[in-house]
Structure formats: C-alpha cells, structure tokens
C-alpha cells in the first residue's frame, strides 16, 4: 500500500495496536496473538512499524535480544528457539537489527561468513551450505551482505549472469533453471540484481509486461502468472518489482530492505544505489 501511496486507506492505529499485541515477553513476534515468537513474523512486525514510524510502541531491547540470541557459533541464525537454520533467517536478523540500529549485538563477520558458505558453484545461494541455488534464498544472502556492506565480496558478474538467466522467453522470471516463471521472482531476482547494480541485464519491457499480464482485471490483485488467481503475496512482489524498475506512479523501494526509500530516509539509512 505504501508503494502505491495508499497507506492512508488503512487504519494505522488499529494495525499498530494489533502488531504490538503480538510481541511476546521474549521480545519476538508471533504470527498472531498468543502464537510463539519466530523471526518470520518479527520481520513483518519490524517492517510495518518502521513504515508507520511506531518503533517506540514496542519493547525494543527485548526485541534486539530475541534476534541476536538466535545467532549460532558458525554465524548462522535459527528461526526460533527450536533451531531451524536457513539463510532466510540470516537475512531477517541482519535486516531487522540494521533497521533498529543494533547490528553491534551480533557477530557480523561470522554472519557474513556463514552466508558466503552457502554460495554455490554457479555463484548463487541456497538455504544451507550445499543446497541448490534458488532465487529466493539468493535475495536473502545478497540482501544480507549488502546491508552488512560486504556485497563487494561477491563475483557480481557471475552472480548477475545466473540471475539474468532466470528470464524466460515470455519475459517472466523463474527461481531455478528449468522451472516456471512466477511474479514473485520479479522481486527476488530483480532486487538481487539491483544490489549488485546489474538490474539493466534484465529485459525490462518484457518483465513489466509479464507482471501486468498477471494482474487480475476484475479484482485488481496480481497472481503468480497470467490467468491465475491473485493473492496478497504476489501482489506485493509484483508491485515491488515494478517499483524497483522505476515504474511511474509507484514510490521507490529499496532492494536490500524491501521497504520504501521514504522509510529508510526517516531512519537515516542510505538506500542502495543502482542503475535502472
């Protein structure tokens, strides 16, 4: 909604109150009231509260403790106290702590080291070391390294090639070789390319066309591909992808943090610079 300049159409106070009530004593957020804390929902809470400039409404100290306590010895992050490890969680931890200005609470060198250990022979990243390169996981790793200021450690040409190879003749992007294109990769792939400043390697017109063809003309939402049913998830990623590519009428989004440049400016965080 923020990217489409429509944030005022939602009840800000109600949303904030509900999010606040999802924070647990441990500091993390659950998916709903009474649900256990997990990084996935913590990320959403932090992003929304940043957009609304309402971070002071929650217990920030506990939140920081919750996130930083999830780092393991090898630098990786678990999703919650139960220990599932995944580069998604590295991204979330790094992104949230950066938005909170508290990256000092984790071992950033080790965090980067673990992320880099998930890099494969093709230059892209999986969920744990050795796992197949996947565009979603790649976004998490590239985003994490970008936020840590270490994106120059990557072979950007090699990674950029793997990323732009995701574009199929229809113009859409897939997540792995020989899989179907899906609108959500308009975010995962395009943001990764933006972070390494190789967004121009995508055929922009063809991708924009693919996203617009995936919009449901009746309801207005965006689906995973043309003629499928829309959902909120693909609507966000379609809109965010279009914003990244500089589509008119949309507020610019940052490729590393997945929040608007406006929000980053308010927080005093420098957005990623890239050629559109």
């Amino acid at each position, binding site marked *: 909604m923020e990217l489409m300049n429509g944030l005022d159409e939602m*009840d800000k106070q*109600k949303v904030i*109150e509900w999010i606040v009530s999802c924070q647990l004593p441990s500091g993390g957020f659950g998916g709903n009231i009474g649900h256990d804390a997990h990084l996935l929902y913590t990320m959403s809470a932090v992003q929304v509260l940043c957009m609304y400039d309402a971070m002071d409404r929650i217990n920030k100290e506990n939140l920081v403790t919750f996130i930083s306590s999830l780092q393991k010895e090898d630098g990786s992050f678990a999703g919650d106290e*139960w220990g599932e490890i995944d580069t998604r969680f590295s991204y979330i931890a790094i992104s949230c702590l950066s938005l909170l200005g508290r990256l000092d609470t984790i071992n950033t060198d080790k965090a980067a080291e673990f992320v880099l250990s998930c890099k494969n*022979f093709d230059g892209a990243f999986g969920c744990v070391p*050795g*796992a*197949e390169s996947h565009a979603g996981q790649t976004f998490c790793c590239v985003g994490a390294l970008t936020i840590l200021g270490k994106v120059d450690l990557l072979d950007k040409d090699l990674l950029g090639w793997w990323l732009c190879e995701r574009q199929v003749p229809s113009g859409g992007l897939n997540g792995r070789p*020989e899989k179907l294109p899906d609108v959500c990769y308009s975010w995962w792939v395009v943001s990764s390319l933006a972070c390494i400043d190789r967004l121009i390697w995508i055929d922009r017109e063809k991708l924009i066309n693919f996203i617009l063809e995936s919009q449901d003309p009746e309801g207005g939402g965006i689906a995973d591909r043309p003629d499928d049913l829309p959902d909120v998830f693909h609507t966000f990623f379609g809109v965010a992808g279009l914003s990244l590519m500089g589509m008119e009428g949309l507020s610019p989004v940052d490729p590393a943090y997945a929040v608007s440049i406006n929000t980053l400016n308010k927080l005093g965080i420098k957005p990623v610079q890239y050629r559109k």
Partner: protein
Amino acid sequence: GINAEYGNLLKRKLHMGGDWIPISKRPEFADVEPLPQDDGPNPVCPIAYSARFSEVMDYLRRFLQTNEKSERALTITREVLEVNAANYTAWYFRRLILYALNKDLKEELNMVGEMAAENPKNYQLWYHRKALIERTKDPTGELDFTAEQLKEDSKNYHVWAHRQWIVETFKLFERENEFVDKLLHEDVRNNSAWNHRFFVFQRTQEFTVENRSNEIEYAFSFVKKAPNNPSPWNYIRGMVNDEWEKFPQVKDKCLGFISTLPSCPHPASILVDIYEKLGENEKATQLCSKLGDNLDNIRRKYWQYRSDLITQKSKTHQ
C-alpha cells in the same frame, strides 16, 4: 458479499467431514475447559475460523497453558495440524510431548510421511522430521522416503535439502551418483539433481583435473537430449572453475556444438569465457555480438557488457 460466500464454501469443504467428532463430544476430554482465542478489544481483520478450527485451537491453547503432556494433548496437536499444518507451535509442542511420553519415533516418522503427501512443501513438517532423526540418530529408510517424495515432485526443494542433510550427517554418499543418474535419465532438466551431484562430488572427491574431466564428460553426455537446458552447461562451468586452459576438450566440444546446435546459446556462451581467458579477444567479442543480436537476445545488455569489458581489457594490454 461474494468473498464471504466463497469463504464459507471453502470452510465447509475443508472442515466438515462427516466422520469428525467434535472434541467436546469425546469422553477423554470431558474435564477440559477449552481456552478461546483473545483477539484483544480491537481485532484488525478478524479471521472467520470454522467451528472445527476454533475448537481444536481452543483445546490446544488450554493444554499449552497447563503444559499438559499427555496422550490426549498429543491427539490435539494432530487435530490442529490437520486444520493448519503450518502451526509451528503445534509442531514444537508435539515434539515435547513425544519426548516426554517416550513415544515410538519411528511411528511418528510414518505419520509425518503420511502428512507429507498433503503438505510436501511445508517447512515445519520437514524440520519436524529432521528433529526426530537428530534425536533417534537413525537414518534408516530416509533415502528411500525422499526418493518416493521426489517421484511426486522431482524438484521439491525441501526434499532435496533433507536428503542432503541425511547424506552428509550419516555419511551415506555411496548410492547418490547412481540416484542422480537415474533421475537425470528420467528428466535431464532436473537442476536439483545436478546440484546434488556437485554436492556429492565436493564431499567425496578431490578437485583434480582428472576427476573434474570425468564430470565434464558426464555433463556433455546429457547435452544432446536437451541442448537448451542450462544445467549441464552450468555444471561444466562449475567444474572448470575458470581454469579453461586445463580442459582443452571443452573448447573442442563447444566448437563442434556451434555447428550441430546452431541456435543454442550455451556452447557460444562458454566459448566467450574460453576465448576471454585465452586472450582471443576478437573471437570473444564476435560471439558476444552473435549472442546479443541473435542467440540470446533477451540478455543483450549482458552480452554488451561482456563485449565492452573484453575490449576494454584488451586495450589496457596493448
């Protein structure tokens, strides 16, 4: 409105199986007072749960509150997972109960296997399976189980990650290349299988020129079946690791493919890397043009970049 109607239809379809007995009507739960959800005074977008969903959740909440680790609590976790397999709280509580009651974890693995049929891409389910095996320290049957899952969806990311974890943790590398080979013969386009082969190679073989040459030959054997499939070509690149001069056979093969597969971008793409490395800049930039204009037009900006870079480098060397 229409959305509410559709929502109700879906709820009825999912949760009103005729055989299901409400918890409140089961004698073993008679003395339990369910704990309703507290959405707070100002619920934002309150979800219209089905009666069944609400009921099983109300019982779970009560057992979580009292921390009851019993058979009936275990039953409730299963009931909750039936209506929402992504409820991570239910999964973790279930584990705690299983361990407290010293339940047969092999039976539990069977149950998880059944649930996997309906929820093959559920993160919590696969993590639960991994957690159980971490505890039993017994991988028996897991390779076969993942192989069965891959028959349904040969590229299921969770299944491959699980299989890799089993193989690495319990050092079960011996059958993997055979397994990958079988899958590639079924579908040469299976990128996950290629990744798995690389994974096994890294952990079992030295990165010598001889070993890598064998792998490169293996990859080339699949190119004819589906020349436009990028996987074997990426695999070759990975094995060469930019040391093109050590693998002259790659250049020869690619030159051959340029004529036999004239519209395939991959041999040309590899030759650009080779020519660049060997300093044959004009040949490299010529192929970049061919790729950008023709063979791989959608990535013309990339090929322009490569061409410019090569030209730039050749100028500084003069």
